[in-house]
């Protein structure tokens, strides 16, 4: 059987990467801290993918590669598959994990909630929560970017957890970005919304 360690080991490392980079090494430079945390994830995604694809034939297309990430790769990491994969067929994919393990036990700061209770408590605490968790998303995004790059698909990856504990991971392949840049009168964000999303598997 494959070797295992307690989940707390992994959780502790992740918490500590974020707090070291954000509070000690780059205390006033969140962008730099984010880039470093993402780089650590990239390295991990790259190495894991090399190991997990050793005995596989080359993926025939991008969809096959992304399905591998959603199924086998995700299963190795979290003992479950991605719950939902959507694509616009033009190089953008959204991977949804309904209960993302690395964030599922995170909670907003209760003291913040109490102090802001007099005001609009729900939006206030949501904001704080989003701020506190956003740094924790760079590592998993880095892993996916590292994995896809290793499979020959350079891309940009971002994540959104507004439906906590579900996590939406957006992968935009570079070919698409080039197309969007050419389409100069529209911003990337605007264009993405105009795409028609179809579900690829559930």
């Amino acid at each position, binding site marked *: 059987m494959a*070797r295992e*360690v307690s*989940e707390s080991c992994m959780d*502790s490392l*992740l918490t500590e990467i974020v707090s*070291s980079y954000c509070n000690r090494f780059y205390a006033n430079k969140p962008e730099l801290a984010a880039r470093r945390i993402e780089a*650590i994830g990239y390295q991990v995604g790259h190495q894991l993918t090399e190991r997990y694809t050793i005995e596989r034939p080359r993926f025939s297309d991008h969809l096959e590669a992304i399905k591998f990430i959603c199924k086998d790769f995700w299963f190795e990491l979290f003992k479950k598959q991605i719950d939902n994969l959507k694509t616009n067929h033009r190089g953008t994919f959204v991977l949804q994990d309904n209960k993302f393990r690395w964030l599922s036990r995170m909670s907003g700061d209760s003291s913040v909630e109490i102090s802001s209770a007099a005001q609009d408590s729900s939006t206030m605490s949501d904001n704080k929560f989003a701020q506190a968790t956003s740094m924790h998303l760079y590592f998993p995004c880095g892993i996916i970017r590292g994995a896809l790059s290793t499979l020959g698909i350079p891309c940009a990856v971002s994540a959104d957890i507004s439906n906590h504990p579900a996590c939406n991971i957006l992968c935009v392949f570079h070919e698409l970005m080039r197309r969007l840049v050419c389409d100069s009168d529209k911003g990337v964000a605007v264009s993405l919304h105009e795409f028609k999303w179809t579900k690829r598997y559930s």
Partner: protein
Amino acid sequence: MAPAVPRSGDAIFANVERVNAELFTLTYGAIVRQLLTDLEEVEEVNKQLDQMGYNIGIRLIDEFLAKSNVTRCVDFRETAEVIAKVGFKMFLGVTASVTNWDTEGTCCSLILEDNPLVDFVELPDTCQGLYYCNILSGVVRGALEMVSMKTEVTWVRDMLRGDDAFELQVKLLKQIPEEYPYKDDE
């Protein structure tokens, strides 16, 4: 009936949530790599790994006490045994052995022959001064400090430096008497 002090962490390890060790090992490796790039000095990397370990240790002790059911250790000898047999097993899935006691019973060595942190690891010549597993010494120091023991934890042998095992020397500096800032109402 008071629960018996467990002599091994096998049962606890079997019951905790576990993850693929490759993910853990490669993540730790990627952290060390990134620290070497960002901090440049090997000495500084050693220091920061120890600090990260310390921060982890002071939190991990809670989980250890909650899940292990250990009662108060009678002396430092028992403490060392519990760390080696229960603590290491419960988190890393491996057991350490305790040897090299000094006559006062305040200094000993934890020997790890199997260490999941170093699977796949080889140190390049430029990192010779690096204590790759320094996070572990920090964890032990941090955890013990939370149970009133000030310790000094240093690496004596390191397989990445060509030794035949990992040997962590744990030296008890002082035991801080527990203080009760609260009033016992019972």
